[in-house]
Structures are given as structure tokens and as C-alpha cells.
């Protein structure tokens, strides 16, 4: 990150908060079957897809009263008729888009040897880099819209297989109106030679972003996938409701890393993104899914990346750092459902709360009767800075057999004055001292991120903290 960004963040500014003026086609506010048909039509989707969207929409409408309110969150209820469900720029090759991503530090045209990036701007995927190299290995990496047309067989088989439209309120809504996102398929025995990445940007003011991502890794394959997000500064709250599905077939490996930095709202808690996300993966025999997330943005986050350990000897991992400041609210955690024999899961969740924010861990570890000799280890650590923030832990542990082993460890600590003073005495400023202690606290998560991401995440945590001293 360059010096200017650092400087502006020091002044408690959200640096990605600029808006790009660009010609785009935005749908009128509100949701009805006409809008859904229009979305489907604009994307030239096959009929079965339109039907699926409508089915989800009617289901959502029928269950609209089941608005999820169980989370430890307080926010103004959304008015789903005041959101536009589609905004697509008219010209994908508009220079202003290239400039926007340049400004975000993710140049589209400059070659980066280690990552292939899919750029999503509002409702549309702009460009996917490095396709040629990937094609050589038979790897498919493109926008989900493209995949729905080109790879119908795979989509029909897997879309909604892990997170069905009737799963929850937002999965119904997402299936009905999702606009774009990434699709990835790794063939049998192929280890993806470069990291795959999607960068999501919300630009338009009244639009809700509904991303849909589907990653399939065939037998013996592996992939590392990264996801990044930002949005302009706005007075009103915006909705981001994503669904991510991972399918890890026999002996395969998926590593899914997220750095979520949506606009978190201002100092008084005004504005910001509502981030309601359903992320889930299914593990077949001997496969492994690792979720790694760094959550620093959004005014409200509701997110539980989960694993269904269906196959014997499969492994699920979840590692998370969430940093909340000002009036941010984060309700996050993981679900590990053990079905196969000898399955094992790991949950490490680290929450850092500052100012008036609220940081919650919510988790489910369920070991089914069939999951003999399974293991889970859960560790939840919370760090409080200041005395107006709060932290909560809601672990739910269910074991239905006698041969499995479950461990849960949990700590809550405050940054101690003694630690700060010690660092001060060595000439380290208070802000820097906090950053050192927090980076130590997050050490075993950050080090699991892919290198480029790790540096960014570390910077992000350091900078975010500089403003929360006091």
C-alpha cells in the first residue's frame, strides 16, 4: 500500500470510498417477477435458469416474514423495494473502469505473474486475466454469467447443490437476483499453477450487489482462491448478499481466502455496507477445504463460512480475524458438519473490538452418528481495546457418537497497559505498540494467507488500528 493511502487512512478516511462516474444501465427500484425476467434476459440465460430464479423469488416472497433476526445485530430493517437489483455498465471497455481498478491498486492490464483476477463492477464481470495459461491446463475460470451459458452441464449439476435456494432468506434472494460472480473448475489431477482471484467493487449508490461464486475442484485437483471487496463512501446503507459454494471432490484441496474491506460507515455509524453472506463447501472423500478470512469492513456482517464433511477422512478448516471499530457489528463464525468417518475440523477465530463496536463469534460443530472417530478443535480468542466495545461467543457443540473428540478453547483479553508501557519504554509509540500486539494476536491467521494477501491484510490491520487509540 502506498504512502498516500496510509496518510489518508490516518485521518480516519476510507480510502476506497471514491465514486466512478460512468454510464450504466440501472434497473428501477424494487423487486418483482418482471425484474427477474429482465435480469435473466439481459444475460441471455437459458430457460431453466430463468425458471430457477423465479422459483427462488416466489419462495422468498412466500417466506418474506422469516426475515432472520436471530443474529446478535441491531440495524434498521432493510426495505427491499428501495434497492435496485441490477446495474450494468454500458461499455465494458470504458477507460474509466480500467482507471478505477488502477486506483484501487489492481491494474487490469498490468501483468501479474502470480494471480489471475476476475473483476466484478457492480453487477457485471469486467475482465478475467490470464485465461490463456489456465486454458492450457483445462482450468475454467470465468464469470458465472458466462459459465451459465457455456458450461450448462456443470452449472446444472452443482449450482445450489451446497447452498440451495431454500436454505435461508438471503440464499433465496440471491438465487433469484444474483448478477455476477466467479466460476471456477479445476479438472482431475490438476493443481492450479497460479492463484485465482475475484475483486468485487460496488460503485452505484442504490444497487444491491448479489454475487454468486461456484468453485468445483475435481478429483485430486487443488486451487487457492482469493476474494477482495471495496465500495464508495455513502450516507445510506447498501446491501451485499453473496452466496459462495465450494465443491471439493475426492482427494482435492481448496483454499479460499477473503479480505473483506467494504465501506464500514462513518465515525458515528452512518452508512456502510450490510454484508449478509452464505458461504459453504462440501468435502468428499479425503478432500480438504480451508477458509481464511480477514474482516475489517462493512457496518454489519453476517457470515459463517462452513464445511460439510461428507466424505471419510475429509478435513475442514476455518481461520478468521475480524476487526470491528466505531459502530461496526460483526456476527461471524463457522459451521462444521461431520458426516463421514475420521473427519477432522479446525476453527480458529480471532476477534478484535474497538470503540463502540460489537464482535460476535457464532459456531456450530455437529458430529453425526456416522462420523466415527472424528475430531474438532475450536479456539476463539477475543481482544478488547478500550472499554465501550463488546465481544460475544455462542458456540454450539453437538456430538452424536462416542468415538469422537471435541475441544473448545476460548479466551478474552484486553490489551494491557503494562504491555503498552513496556513498548513505550523502548521508544515505541502507543499506536505502534497496539499494532505490534494486535499483529502478534493475529499471527497464526495472517501467516496462513497467500503471501501477497498477507502483506495487505497486515497493513490493513495496522492502519485500521491507528485510528482507534484512546
Amino acid at each position: 500500500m502506498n504512502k498516500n493511502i496510509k496518510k489518508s487512512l490516518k485521518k480516519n478516511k476510507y480510502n476506497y470510498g471514491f465514486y466512478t462516474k460512468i454510464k450504466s444501465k440501472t434497473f428501477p427500484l424494487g423487486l418483482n417477477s418482471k425484474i427477474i425476467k429482465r435480469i435473466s434476459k439481459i444475460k441471455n440465460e437459458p430457460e431453466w435458469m430463468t425458471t430457477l430464479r423465479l422459483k427462488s423469488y416466489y419462495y422468498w416472497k412466500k417466506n418474506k416474514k422469516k426475515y432472520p433476526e436471530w443474529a446478535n445485530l441491531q440495524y434498521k430493517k432493510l426495505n427491499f423495494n428501495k434497492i435496485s437489483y441490477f446495474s450494468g455498465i454500458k461499455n465494458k471497455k470504458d477507460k474509466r473502469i480500467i482507471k478505477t481498478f488502477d486506483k484501487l491498486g489492481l491494474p487490469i492490464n498490468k501483468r501479474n505473474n502470480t494471480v489471475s483476477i476476475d473483476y466484478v463492477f457492480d453487477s457485471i464481470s469486467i475482465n478475467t486475466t490470464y485465461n490463456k495459461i489456465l486454458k492450457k491446463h483445462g482450468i475454467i475460470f470465468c464469470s458465472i454469467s458466462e459459465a451459465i451459458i457455456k458450461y450448462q452441464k456443470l452449472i446444472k449439476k452443482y449450482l445450489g447443490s451446497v447452498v440451495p435456494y431454500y436454505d435461508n432468506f438471503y440464499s433465496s434472494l440471491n438465487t433469484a437476483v444474483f448478477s455476477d460472480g466467479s466460476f471456477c473448475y479445476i479438472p482431475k489431477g490438476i493443481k492450479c499453477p497460479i492463484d485465482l482471484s475475484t475483486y468485487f467493487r460496488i460503485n452505484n449508490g442504490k444497487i444491491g450487489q448479489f454475487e454468486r461464486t461456484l468453485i468445483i475442484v475435481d478429483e485430486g485437483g487443488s486451487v487457492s482462491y482469493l476474494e477482495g471487496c471495496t465500495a464508495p463512501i455513502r450516507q445510506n446503507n447498501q446491501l451485499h448478499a453473496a452466496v459462495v459454494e465450494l465443491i471439493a471432490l475426492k482427494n482435492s484441496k481448496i483454499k479460499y481466502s477473503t479480505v473483506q474491506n467494504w465501506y464500514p460507515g462513518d465515525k458515528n455509524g452512518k452508512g456502510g455496507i450490510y454484508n449478509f453472506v452464505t458461504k459453504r463447501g462440501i468435502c468428499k472423500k479425503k478432500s480438504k477445504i480451508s477458509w481464511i478470512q480477514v474482516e475489517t469492513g462493512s457496518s454489519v456482517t453476517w457470515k459463517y463460512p462452513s464445511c460439510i464433511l461428507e466424505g471419510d477422512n475429509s478435513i475442514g478448516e476455518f481461520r478468521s480475524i475480524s476487526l470491528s471499530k466505531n459502530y461496526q457489528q460483526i456476527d461471524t463464525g463457522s459451521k462444521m458438519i461431520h458426516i463421514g468417518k475420521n473427519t477432522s475440523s479446525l476453527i480458529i477465530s480471532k476477534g478484535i473490538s474497538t470503540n463502540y463496536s460489537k464482535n460476535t463469534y457464532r459456531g456450530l460443530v455437529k458430529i453425526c452418528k456416522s462420523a466415527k472417530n472424528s475430531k474438532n478443535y475450536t479456539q476463539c480468542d477475543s481482544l478488547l481495546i478500550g472499554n465501550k466495545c463488546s465481544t460475544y461467543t455462542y458456540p454450539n457443540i453437538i456430538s452424536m457418537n462416542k468415538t469422537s473428540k471435541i475441544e473448545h478453547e476460548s479466551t478474552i483479553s484486553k490489551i494491557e497497559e503494562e504491555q503498552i508501557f513496556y513498548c513505550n519504554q523502548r521508544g515505541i509509540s502507543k499506536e505502534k505498540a497496539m499494532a505490534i500486539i494486535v499483529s502478534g494476536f493475529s499471527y497464526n491467521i495472517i501467516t496462513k494467507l497467500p503471501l501477497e494477501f498477507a502483506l495487505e491484510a497486515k497493513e490493513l490491520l495496522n492502519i485500521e488500528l491507528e485510528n482507534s487509540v484512546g
Partner: protein
Amino acid sequence: MLKIKNLYSSINNTLIIKNLNLKINNGEIHILMGPNGSGKSTLSYIITGKPKYKINKGKIIFCKKIINTLSPDKISKLGIFLSFQNPIEIDGITMFNFFKNIKKKNNLKKIYKLCKILNIDKKDLYRFFNLGFSGGEKKKNEILQMLILKPKFIILDEIDSGLDIDTIKLLFKIIKHYLKNNPKCSLLIITHNTNIIKYIIPNRVHIIYNGSIILSGNSELIYRIEKNGYYSLIKKKHNDK
């Protein structure tokens, strides 16, 4: 170098330092002694600017500059170093990483050399800061940081407590060597152990009791403490008044 004038200081509205005066010249070694709870460590915290302590009255002057209004990191940067009685631990941060934060231009080779002098295993530099260290290892780490920071004024708070005799000897050998190379550097040793005299000869010895220095003298005062204990000296002082 350091001058404390009519100092009154309190914590949570309780007065703990009362009319304390102390003057330490360039290159001098002073020993501050006193019974438990007399205010020895407190004084070291006040000099180094620990935020919990409020200065009600008086001045602390270091190199002709009033420092009692400065933040602790600025005081440190002026060249005051405190070796803590109970150094803290930091999880997830290696020793070497911490050293990079206290001094930007840190040469790995040089640190390796210092480790060798202090008899610290090089591998320890990649362990997390003081985590799982023994008492002796923690104190060695303090002195290592002292050598990295090259201070003008050093406070050693109970450096000798809980260490084996070989380590104490080694640490004082290194400290004395440092003073020899930096003849202007002054040293304030806080202890309640009269054995200290075996390792270093002070210019002045002070007895602190109930938040003020009640008796000062040369090294001979230590022998008197050893012979009679603090309380007879304190009592005598009271009677003299």
C-alpha cells in the same frame, strides 16, 4: 544528568511519593534501597513516565530538560532506559521482530554478536517475545535491549532478583563494560539486596522510605543496612528529627 526536585506524585488520588529529591551526575552509579513497598519501583515508573502516575508537584529534569510532561516513548527516546523487574510477554511477535521496532537500523550480525556476549542462543531471537522464557532469560533480554538502544541513563529494577550467581556476575560484567565505554552514562540500581556491593561499587547509596529519600551516603551505608536492617536506620533518622 538527572535531577528530581521536590517531587510529589500520586496514583488513584493516593500520595505515594512525597517531597523526593535526587541528583545523579554524569557517569555516576547510584543505588536506591528500601524495604518492600517503600516506593522504589514506583520512582522508576515515574521517571520513565508511566501514565498511571500523576505528578502533583515538583520537577524531573533530564539533561537540562523538564521531562515530567512527556509521554513515555519520548522519554525513552531521550536516552532513559528501564530494565523491568517483571518484563512482559508478547505472543506472536518474535524477539527479532520486536528489536526491529525499537531500532530501525538493526544489523542482524550485530545482534548475533550481542547474543554471544550475553550467552543467548541465536535461535531464541526467533522465539516469541519472552514467551516461556525463564527469569534469567527475560533479564538477559532486558540487557540485550539496553545494548541495542545505547541509553544515556539506565535504571535497573531488581535486576538481581531470582537469578543464579553466574548470570548476575555476567550481567554486571557487561553493564560495567558498557559504562566503561560510555563514561558519561549514569546508572540507578534499585534493589533490596545488600549483596549488590559484591558486583558493583556505587558513588552514592540512598534509602527510600514511605515515598521519600530519608538517608543518603556512600557505599559504606550498605554495610550499615546489612548489619542493622532498614528499620533501625529509619527509626534513628526519625529520632534525629
